[in-house]
């Protein structure tokens, strides 16, 4: 069991009032809040160690380099990567996926090839593949989602039909940011491997919420962001299996990623430097390492259990509201710590505006899932997404706020 009182004390931002009400932060799917330890790490770095990494011989540069590379090692351990060189720092999930789509896509995709993704992807794991397919002449195909509310998850029978030897890459989300569906990632990787397809997992919604082991999953590439796992914005990771990274050309070129440069040519350093041209985001990488420490001290299995309790409780209580349509897995089925819902007569943005007046931070809209929204016949949903500091009382406040709002709009 998580000690919620103690955890909440670690997050300075939670202790404020919004419109005269205590803040109830339920927008963790968009970004999580930061514990004091992570904020302190940023301050400490800028006050004590700030320097450029890798090329300096002075004390500060060595401290900065040690801390930056230490963070890489820490994150490798966090996801159980075999080698810290498999951790490439990026700006976030989006940049990580774009790196694979451009570098790997450019080198490997040809006309006639198929890139497979799913109907429930965030735009960040969809648009880069559209672009890669367009640039290479490959075809993009989608694993369909089942059920009028997307409650049936991805169609596994269709996946088997779609996974042909023409599929060169299968990109899928671990957890849907809109439906809350938890995909069987290890099973997907296994099936993809059987046809020789490379796998890319969008782990943005899962990474800080449950234990994560890239080797057990059998993933080739994994993309995630720091800011959804208690770390800073502007830092994320692309994990790539070493054997793949060694053969991959860089996407960006410049300083720091080259071993030899002449006026005519340049040679690349090995991974990870090959993929980190220019001065990296040193401070935020270091703070992300501290976020890993923070989450592991609490236990990610404990966080996952806490998320699950809140999600099921939210499902139960939200379903008592008149006219509510909850999308994603049905009550009792496995679901991540988020719930998306809509009301036919009240638009999500009106719901969110009313909730804000009650101190609640929710998200309303298409959640960067426009094609999925269209498929489900929705213009948007309201999403409540939970994390380690949320309480059962906050779910009661959510439901009470929604009840007032739908009543105001005349839904009975």
């Amino acid at each position, binding site marked *: 069991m998580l000690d919620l009182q103690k955890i909440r004390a670690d997050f300075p931002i939670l202790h404020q009032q919004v419109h005269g009400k205590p803040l109830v932060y339920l927008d963790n799917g968009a970004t999580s809040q930061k514990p004091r330890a992570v904020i302190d790490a940023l301050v400490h770095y800028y006050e004590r160690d700030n320097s450029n990494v890798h090329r300096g011989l002075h004390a500060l540069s060595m401290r900065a380099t040690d801390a930056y590379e230490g963070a890489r090692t820490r994150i490798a351990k966090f996801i159980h990567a075999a080698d810290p060189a498999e951790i490439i720092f990026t700006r976030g999930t989006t940049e990580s996926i774009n790196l694979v789509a451009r570098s790997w896509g450019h080198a490997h995709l040809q006309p006639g090839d198929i890139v497979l993704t799913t109907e429930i992807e965030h735009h960040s794991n969809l648009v880069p593949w559209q672009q890669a397919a367009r640039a290479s002449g490959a075809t993009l195909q989608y694993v369909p989602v089942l059920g009028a509310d997307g409650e049936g998850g991805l169609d596994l029978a269709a996946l088997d039909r779609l996974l042909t030897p023409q599929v060169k890459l299968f990109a899928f989300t671990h957890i849907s940011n809109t439906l809350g569906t938890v995909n069987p990632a290890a099973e997907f990787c296994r099936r993809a491997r059987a046809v020789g397809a490379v796998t890319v997992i969008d782990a943005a919604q899962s990474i800080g919420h449950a234990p994560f082991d890239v080797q057990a999953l059998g993933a080739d590439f994994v993309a995630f962001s720091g800011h959804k796992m208690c770390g800073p914005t502007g830092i994320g990771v692309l994990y790539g299996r070493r054997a793949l990274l060694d053969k991959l050309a860089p996407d960006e070129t410049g300083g720091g990623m080259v071993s030899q440069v002449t006026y005519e040519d340049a040679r690349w350093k090995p991974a990870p430097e090959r993929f980190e041209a220019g001065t990296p985001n040193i401070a935020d990488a270091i703070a992300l390492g501290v976020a890993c420490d923070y989450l592991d001290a609490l236990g990610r299995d404990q966080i996952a259990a806490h998320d699950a309790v809140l999600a099921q409780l939210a499902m139960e209580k939200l379903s008592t509201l008149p006219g509510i349509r909850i999308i994603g897995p049905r009550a009792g089925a496995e679901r991540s710590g988020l719930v998306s819902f809509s009301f036919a007569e009240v638009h999500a*943005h009106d719901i969110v505006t009313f909730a804000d007046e009650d101190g609640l931070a929710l998200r309303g809209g298409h959640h960067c899932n426009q094609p999925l929204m269209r498929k489900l016949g929705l213009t948007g949903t309201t999403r409540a997404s939970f994390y380690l500091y949320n309480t059962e009382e906050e779910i009661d406040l959510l439901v009470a706020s929604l009840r007032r709002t739908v009543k105001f709009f005349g839904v009975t």
Partner: protein
Amino acid sequence: MSADLTELYQQVILDHNRRPRNRGKLPTANRVAHGDNPTCGDQCSVYLRMDGDRIAEISFDGSGCAISQASASLMTTQVKGKTAPEVQALYKNFHDIVTTGHAPEEISDLAAFAGVHSFPARIKCATLGWHAAIEAMKSDPMPTTTTESHVD
């Protein structure tokens, strides 16, 4: 509920949201423009039948929050019969109302949107339909594909 919120969701707005006026495609339209707010996903298409330089008929279609839908609905009732400069002048008044909260006395119905000024994130919701209407007036006439149908 806070005063700001009741000011935002006035009865006029709730009424237009619930019973939008001039909603749907206009079969006789000779101008159309589409507006959207990519960040919220709100969409609004405005259909016009221009008769000379005046709006003879208008309708709108789309989806979005109560503010955007009510504003588009109310807009259609305000601009009918007007020329492009007259619509621009009316929009300027409307824009002033939603950004400052102050409505000139002669502006009656549009004043319902004065509460928007307390919610800066919602200004673009209120102006979406207006932008689409102004774009539609500027747009090239579209070939009318409707054939004469028998009307009793």
